[in-house]
Structure formats: C-alpha cells, structure tokens
C-alpha cells in the first residue's frame, strides 16, 4: 500500500512539483510581510517553518485522498479484502515519507533564506519525525472521514488544523530550544510530539476499517 502510493507519487510528482514550490513560496512571502533585515526572521523562523509545513501537509494529505478517489479506487480498496488497519498504516507511511522529503527541502530553504545556524541537529530530526507522524495520522483519519463529502477540500483543513495545534506548538518550541542551543528544554516537547503521534496512530489503526465502510 505504502509502496503503491509512493510509486504513484514518483510518477505523478504532484507533491514534489506543486506542494513543495508552494511551501518555499510561503517562506518567501513571510519574509515580505516581516521586515527581512531586522533580527525578527531568525527569531521566529521555527514557527514560520512549521506553519508552512502544516499548510503544505494539508495539500499532501488531500493528494493522498485524491489518489483513492480516481476510478473508484476507494471501492476497490474496500473490495480488496485488505485489513483497514494495514491500509491506514500504508497510507500514513507514504504521507510521512513524502512530508519528510518536503520538510528536508523546506528546512534547508528556511536556514538559507532566514540565515540561521544549525544546532541541535538530533533534536531537530527526532522532533520533525514525531511531529510528522502526528500530522500524517490525523490527516489520514480525517481524510477518510471527509472523503465522501463534496466539500472535502474545505472540510479537511477545518478538521486537521485545530487538532494539530499541539503539534504546531510542540514542534515550534522544540525547534526554538534546539536552535538556541538549549536541547535539554526541547525534550519535553519532543515527548509531547511522540505521545501525540503514537496516540493518533493507534486511533487511526483501530478506526480506519470501520470508517472506510461506514463513513
């Protein structure tokens, strides 16, 4: 399932060709609205980075849902007889891989555009992975919840953004602490991110099969 989604992305390159430029563009637009010459950009860079990631991930999740909408693939998945939990894990894994690739490019762009010195790399990596699992899990669950709706594109952001508020908060704080050279302060936030990711991964694993059938 994961391999299939990734292969589709490799062929169609929707996320890489459209979502990624969108993300970089948002980073540049932030600099327009905030005085780029003052010291403000480096200071708030973690927050800007994670807002950009969250907005981009909404698009990536939307793509992950759209893949199943073409030619009745959703019915095909139901008919295939695969376990709902396995389908969920496959889709989340594919979204996580895509988002991590996206974040890698965006973080390099952030560091370069906002001139930031990299510090506490291991904290950054672990925080990013935990946060991404949380975003991908909630996004995938809400994606299938809303997949039957004609208003899916507008509904998914309304559902995902509030529930991911703790992720945005935790990831931003963890990045701030790590970049300021205070990795010790970042760990509680990383733990929060990990707990969030684990919780919603479990919820999705249990609920996904039922949601595919009845939602």
């Amino acid at each position, binding site marked *: 399932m994961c391999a299939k989604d990734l292969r589709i992305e490799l062929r169609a390159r929707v996320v890489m060709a459209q979502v990624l430029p969108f993300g970089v563009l948002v980073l540049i637009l932030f600099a327009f609205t905030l005085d780029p010459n003052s010291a403000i950009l480096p200071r708030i860079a973690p927050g800007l980075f994670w807002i950009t990631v969250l907005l981009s991930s909404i698009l990536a999740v939307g793509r992950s849902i759209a893949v199943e909408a073409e030619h009745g693939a959703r019915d095909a998945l139901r008919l295939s007889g695969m376990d709902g939990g396995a389908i969920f894990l496959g889709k989340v894994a594919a979204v996580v891989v895509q988002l991590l690739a996206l974040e890698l490019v965006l973080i390099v762009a952030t560091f370069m555009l906002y001139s930031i010195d990299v510090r506490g790399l291991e904290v950054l990596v672990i925080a990013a992975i935990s946060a991404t699992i949380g975003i991908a899990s*909630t996004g995938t669950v809400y994606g299938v919840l809303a997949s039957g709706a*004609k208003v899916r594109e507008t509904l998914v952001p*309304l559902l995902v953004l509030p529930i991911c*508020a703790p992720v945005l*908060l935790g990831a931003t704080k963890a990045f701030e602490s790590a970049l300021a050279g205070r990795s010790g302060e970042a760990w509680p936030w990383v733990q929060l991110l990990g707990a969030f990711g684990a919780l919603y991964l479990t919820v999705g694993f249990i609920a996904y099969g*039922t949601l595919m059938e009845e*939602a």
Partner: protein
Amino acid sequence: MSKQASGRAQTVNAGRPWLGLTAFAGVSATFVMGLVVAPKDEQQRDAYRLLYMHVPAAWLAYLAFTVTAIASALYLVPRTRHLRWDYLAGASGELGVMFTALMLAGGSLWGKPVWGQWWAWEARLTTTAILLFLYLGYLALRRIGGSPQQRATRSAIAGLIAFIDVPIVHFSVSWWATLHQEGSVFNDKMQLHIRDGVMQFTLLLAVASFTLLYVWMCMRRMELLALDEGLAERELQLAIDERSNRPATTNPVTV
C-alpha cells in the same frame, strides 16, 4: 410535517413543560439578581457581573463536550448502539459550541475593562478558542450527508478523536503560556473574591438555571432530530412499498 408527527411532538413534550418553564424562570431570575440585586465588586465594579454568565457557560461547554464523547462511545459499543446516542451527541455538540462561543464573547467583553484588552494569550482563553474550532469541525462533519447510520458512526469516531485532543491541547497550551509570562496582564485586579452572600447565591442560581436550560434544550433538540429522522424514514418506507407493489410487467414469480 404530518399531523401524526406534530401530534407526537406535543405528547412527548407535554410530559415535562415544567422543565422548560423552570429553566426560563431561573435564567430570568439570574438576570435580575446578577444585573440589579447583586452588589458591585470593589475592584472590577460592574464588569464582574459577566461572571454570572461566564461561569455557567464554561461549565456547560465542558459538560456538553463530555456528554458528546460519552454518547459517541455508547453509539460505538455494539451492545448499546442506538441512534438516540447519535442525536444526543449531536444536540450536545451544538450546545457545547454555543456555550463555548458565549464563553469567548463574554471573556473578551470582560477582558476589555479589566485587562485593558479584548484578548490575552492566556492558557484557558487560547485552549477555549482551539476547542471552538475543534467542535465547529465536528459539527461540519455531521452535516455532510449519508445515511443516519453512516453519519452516526462517522460523527461518533470524530467526537472521540476531538475529545481526546482536548487535554493535549490544554496541556500544551498551558505549558506554552507559562513560558511566555513576560509583561503579563495578570494582576491582583483579576482575583475575584466572591465572599458576599448575595453574590454566592446569584452564582449558584446562574449555574443551576443555565444547566437546566442546557438539559431542556438538549432534550428538545434530540426530539427534533428524532422527528426529522422519523419523517425521512416514513417517506422512505412509502417509496419502498410503492416500488415493490407496482410491478411494471406481468407474471411475478418468486425465484
């Protein structure tokens, strides 16, 4: 609506008109007590009177969302699966959003004279704002169509997902807020001491009567949802009967 359906609505409701009446009487009394009878606060003057609406709204918002979560869980457990739990979850969710909005509106109306600003990035206020959007999403999800069973299952799972997010949001936001206590708007003025007997009584009355109002509105909303469903059900049954009883061609043979 058919005559039969509206007749049933009256009989169902006729059993307890006292509940609605008591709630309205209580809320009216709260307004009189809170706005006229209760004395001014020494520091906050008249602004504190918003408390008589704010405290019940906050309590009921959390109560309503808890009820939504419990009803959602009850629907998901096969042994207790019944659409009435879905009606309860929906009705309570709507009221929860209403009380949350009331809490936010009251909070910022109170914040202007007391804090000097409409909004403060304070933990409870921020959590409440996130909560409002979390459940606005839940209500939007309830309206996207499908059969009652589909809607019920979908909403029940969404209700639980939103509910388990509430403590995480609260925890992370308060943690975040304690890190940012530079130039805090908090001061002694905020400490409100309700020692006066009349004030205490008014607050108690407010909480009690708004809770009654919640129970009554919740029950009425459930009835309405059940009637809607009953109506749709009856139309559907008519359509089924019509289809199966009117063969287009000859010789019906059971295969």
